[in-house]
């Protein structure tokens, strides 16, 4: 079997001779006998490329992807169309295979992409500072928490219940590490309860977290939420859906200090959840507290424009235990997809796309809420995602409705009851520019049949459909 190695028997002989040993085993003589693996790994034998392909294809076919059904699944990642030129650029060896650009003279391509990405993200968020990407959305929220912790050393995080459950959970997981208490603020009428929010913020609040649009798709009044923290030490952190920022007021204009979010919607594939990228933008005040890589412009010895990784004294490889973050490998390739996507959309396109989603989402909400046994979970403004309530028996009922719809080729969305504390009979429905009116209309039919069937079954039997 090939292991992608090149050592011929002749090579081996010459190399061992040059080293001055008689066998490869001798090179491992320094490993104590007690920790050597004698029998070899208990793994299947290697396979030719064609067999690996066949195996991976077989596994792929056991999944129902967004190419196999009409999907209204969202809740953090979305079936946007990824233009073909992004695939091409992301698969170019020159972007795909280099390491982090430690040698700027031969990494100008990647560094310039980072610089352009930072420019695009600062434009989108209306904040002056962006890093070159973090892992993904929820961990970006947690990274914002760590920034706040280092910045003000306070003891509490105040978290809106509109934050994505994964973000809230991730924040909680990490906050344990540095001992910060997390305080939840409930929603009211689908948005963060303003009274409870204001009441929760105090002098010991290190950061406040909300999401816009929030997890139920509702547009939050970001400015009001930020204003409520104005007189506290709290860093205001907003998690944003970047695709909505063509029409939503940008965080930088609402008093948000740190805007983070999941970048997948910007030209990245679903990939069952990753890799994508997280974006991380902030006010000038936090420039030297940012996690991750930042590219900066400079000149070479001949005066030519060039780019370098800059402000590296923040980073782990220089600052070690005093670093602003432990992040090293980030998501450069995915961020490339992001900036190419934003350039593809362009200044007009991001607005047009936002307005299209706004209209179609309104149509979908109205159409689906008109189905018998279906109502809206809230009536706040929504941009690309909305929450319904199904008049069925709990999460199990919703799951059966979803199954029935999926059997008809339509995945109606995400059952909110799957999350702890989520509305048991809620269904989160997301749109992208790939979902047409025709598909919405058909979903309404499919959903109507499924809900009706579920309600009929519930009254006559408890059997689960196949």
């Amino acid at each position: 079997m090939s292991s992608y190695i090149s050592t011929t028997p002749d090579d081996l002989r010459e190399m061992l001779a040059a080293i001055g040993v008689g066998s490869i085993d001798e090179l491992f003589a320094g490993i104590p006998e007690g920790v050597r693996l004698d029998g070899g790994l208990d793994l299947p034998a290697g396979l030719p490329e064609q067999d690996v392909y066949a195996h991976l294809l077989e596994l792929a076919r056991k999944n129902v992807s967004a190419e196999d059904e009409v999907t209204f699944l969202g809740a953090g990642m979305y079936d946007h169309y990824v233009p073909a030129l992004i695939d091409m650029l992301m698969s170019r060896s020159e972007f795909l295979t280099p390491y982090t650009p430690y040698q700027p003279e031969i990494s100008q391509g990647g560094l310039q992409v980072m610089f352009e990405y930072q420019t695009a993200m600062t434009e989108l968020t209306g904040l002056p500072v962006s890093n070159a990407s973090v892992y993904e959305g929820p961990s970006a929220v947690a990274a914002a928490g760590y920034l706040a912790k280092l910045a003000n050393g306070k003891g509490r995080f105040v978290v809106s219940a509109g934050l994505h459950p994964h973000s809230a959970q991730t924040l909680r997981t990490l906050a344990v590490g540095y001992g910060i208490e997390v305080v939840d603020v409930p929603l009211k009428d689908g948005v963060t309860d303003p009274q409870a929010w204001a009441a929760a913020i105090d002098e010991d609040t290190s950061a406040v977290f909300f999401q816009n649009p929030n997890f139920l798709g509702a547009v939050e009044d970001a400015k009001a939420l930020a204003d409520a923290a104005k007189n506290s030490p709290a860093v205001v952190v907003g998690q944003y859906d970047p695709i909505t920022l063509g029409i939503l007021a940008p965080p930088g204009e609402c008093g948000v200090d740190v805007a983070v979010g999941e970048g997948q919607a910007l030209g990245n594939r679903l990939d069952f959840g990753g890799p994508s990228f997280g974006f991380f933008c902030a006010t000038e005040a936090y420039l030297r507290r940012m996690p991750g890589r930042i590219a900066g412009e400079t000149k070479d010895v001949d005066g030519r424009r060039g780019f370098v990784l800059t402000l590296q004294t923040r980073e782990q490889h220089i600052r070690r235990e005093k670093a602003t973050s432990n992040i090293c490998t980030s998501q450069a390739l995915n961020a490339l997809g992001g900036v190419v996507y934003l350039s593809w959309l362009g200044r007009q396109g991001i607005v047009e796309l936002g307005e299209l989603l706004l209209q179609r989402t309104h149509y979908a909400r109205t159409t689906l809420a008109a189905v018998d046994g279906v109502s809206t979970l809230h009536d706040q403004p929504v941009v690309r995602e909305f929450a319904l309530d199904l008049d069925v028996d709990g999460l199990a009922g919703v799951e059966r409705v979803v199954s029935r719809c999926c059997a008809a080729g339509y995945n109606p969305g995400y059952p909110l009851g799957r999350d702890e504390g989520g509305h048991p009979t809620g269904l989160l429905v997301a749109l992208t520019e790939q979902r047409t009116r025709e598909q919405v209309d058909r979903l309404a039919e499919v959903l109507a049949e499924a809900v009706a069937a579920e309600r009929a079954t519930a009254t006559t039997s408890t059997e689960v459909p196949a």
Partner: protein
Amino acid sequence: DRVVTIFEKGAPGRRAFTCPELDVPQVDPQQLLPAGLRRMAPPRLPEVSEPELVRHYVRISRRNFDLDSGFYPLGSCTMKHNPRLHERVAGLPGHARLHPLQHPSRSQGALELMYNLERALGEVAGLPHVCLQPSAGSHGELAGLLVTRAYHEDRGEVRTKVLTPDTAHGTNPATVTMAGYTVVKVGTNADGGVDLDDLRAKADGDVACLMLTNPNTLGIFDPNIEEISRIVHEVGATLYYDGANLNAVMGVSRPGDMGFDIVHYNLHKSFTQPHGGGGPGSGPIAVSDRIAPYLPTPVIRRTDSADGPVFDLVAEGLPEGAPGAKSIGRLRGFQGNYGCFVRSYSYICSLGGEGLKEASQTAVLNANYLLARLQAEGVREYLPLGFGERCMHEFVLSGAPMKKELGIKTLDLAKRLLDHGFHPPTVYFPLLVDEALMIEPTETETKETLDAFADAVVAILREAQEDPSIAQNAPYTTPVRRLDEAAAAKQPVIRQPLPA
């Protein structure tokens, strides 16, 4: 040819995107989204046509050096060949267009793949329980320390310190701080291994964990690993394996067998993810039985039925002692970097157990051969090996004599290598070695390439004997020459200024 960004290209009104037509009855947009919540001015994104967009990025891509074009012996980074098969299979719609919240019953292939990958990785590490969730090595480290914390707290213990050798990657101490611990450095002995006396002195009841890379960043396998394990476990601490150097020992020696409780893998190193110019990566962890309950959730559960195995994602109601039963929670959204799992799983399928071992053996062979070439007379005088005589998959030379004798620093040598068409090794790390040059050739390079690299080093040393200023001012043939990094940091310009 002046370098311009995409923001300096195009013209007002140009576009690549064609918006789908509005196919629903139009409602007053202000009614749907009131002015107070609205953006007033559009973001100043580029306005370019598709041909411009393609050409811009194709052109700037050519200003990158990449693994597909040349030797990339960056120490500790394991720049091994990235098979294109992996891009093909990761791009199959059944993987690439699978929504992360698709119900497990409709994502059985993905869960089976993840289950299989967990088993295979566990076998390589010699530890039974794997969690794929962490996004990169440093994320895996954080996961490792958070499960360590949960483990100790569950036993009612409060521990405050984490030991790291002075040869550790910077991520280790940075992670320690993020996990709320204090870093305590452990020294290195004359052979390049852990200073056992120092370790014994510092290992006490306050120590939560020792984080170790083995072979370490000097490319040296610590011969005292069994003793180290004994010392650490005696004080009740966990032993953490930084998997950055796992490529040296796959199928040869297993961290679990060495006594490690927790291991992280860098799928983007040992299991050949393309690095993407700085990610994506993937940093799964493996743990022993006693640590397993604290693993992040959800976990993948396999149930065997008459129709074959069924896979599920489970976060709650896990039986006592099971992986994730007392979980620390999530570390990120969804299930981790699945696209990376597809690639690394394919790699493991291609190589099999024997192939993985052969990869490690050849990585060590290549490193020792290149070391031998670079310790030939006329080279070793300027670039002696920092520690020991042989190495595992990488080795660290010291450029101190070269600096003293020839007047060129390690950085100069590195920059001059650019003119020879090579990516330089890692420089100035580990900190322990003066003017360090850390070289990791990997198993996928040919002997001819190793020879050509050694020849280039020889040529640069010879050239410096004649005229050190050549290397001092290198490179000459690159898209740009040495850049003013100090100015960049002093007055940061981190975005393109745009006209209003």
